[in-house]
């Protein structure tokens, strides 16, 4: 019974992450002149899963989202971006969470900023252009703000869902 519930919630989280990916793809590129760089809305789901179930579960949801987005509306370049961003972001978030120096908000911010960092690093190598690295400045600003909002939302979600999931 407990397993069924877990699987159901996993599917739900994956769907939610997919919807956020799609929503993000629809939005115009806000502050960056480098196409394909995203703010990382699906991070809301990843942060929530990280707090509710742990690193392994968050990695599974993240990977599943990447594969599905790639199959549905991706291309190879966007996939490389997303993979680098998602992997670095999750790794850093898991480490920071373990150190327990920040709340959900701080963890989410490190996730958002490193998500952008991973993407920019890939873009720098992909286009062999160091100049693209300048955009990391603006992305640090937007990433911090996005991470803040996502962290607060994830903390609220966590508070409400934790009870439901443990019953």
């Amino acid at each position, binding site marked *: 019974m407990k397993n069924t519930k877990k699987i159901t919630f996993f599917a739900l989280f994956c769907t939610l992450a997919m919807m956020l990916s799609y929503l993000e793809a629809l939005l115009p590129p806000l502050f960056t002149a480098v196409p394909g760089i995203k703010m990382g809305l699906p991070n809301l789901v990843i942060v929530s899963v990280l707090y509710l179930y742990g690193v392994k579960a968050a990695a599974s949801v993240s990977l599943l989202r990447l594969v599905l987005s790639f199959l549905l509306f991706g291309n190879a370049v966007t996939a490389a971006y997303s993979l680098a961003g998602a992997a670095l972001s999750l790794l850093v978030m898991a480490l920071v969470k373990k150190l327990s120096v920040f709340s959900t908000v701080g963890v989410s911010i490190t996730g958002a900023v490193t998500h952008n960092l991973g993407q920019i690093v890939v873009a720098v190598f992909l286009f062999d252009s160091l100049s693209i690295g*300048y955009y990391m400045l603006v992305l*640090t600003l937007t990433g911090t703000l996005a991470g803040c909002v996502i962290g607060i939302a994830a903390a609220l979600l966590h508070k409400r869902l934790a009870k439901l999931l443990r019953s």
Partner: protein
Amino acid sequence: MTASDTKKRLWRNDLVLIFVLLFVAALGILLAFLFRQEGAYCTLTQNGKEIGRYSLSVDREITVYADAQKTAYNTVRIKDGGVSVLAASCPDKICQNSRAIRYHGETVVCLPHGLVITVYSDEDGLDIVV
């Protein structure tokens, strides 16, 4: 230490993180803005390989193709010391919607066509201007 003390400590750390990140980013942007240099020329690279280098002081339009059939194009315009993409056949049109760039280090990227336009300030690079 009580649970609420821990919570307070985490919140304080969060705030420190937010301020440090915002401060560093804002300072970086400010410095980049203060020390920005007018560009002298721009380079066009396709998939990391340079395909052209043009002075920004001569107005002109350049069309580059990303495929052998010449259906995938970007028309680059140099005007009044700035460079922008006038028209492009890429699906996202992000390059076309980017504003003109004129300062050292600025880039316009067309992801679908692997095209990067970069502005450079130093006049020495003009040796091999086309």
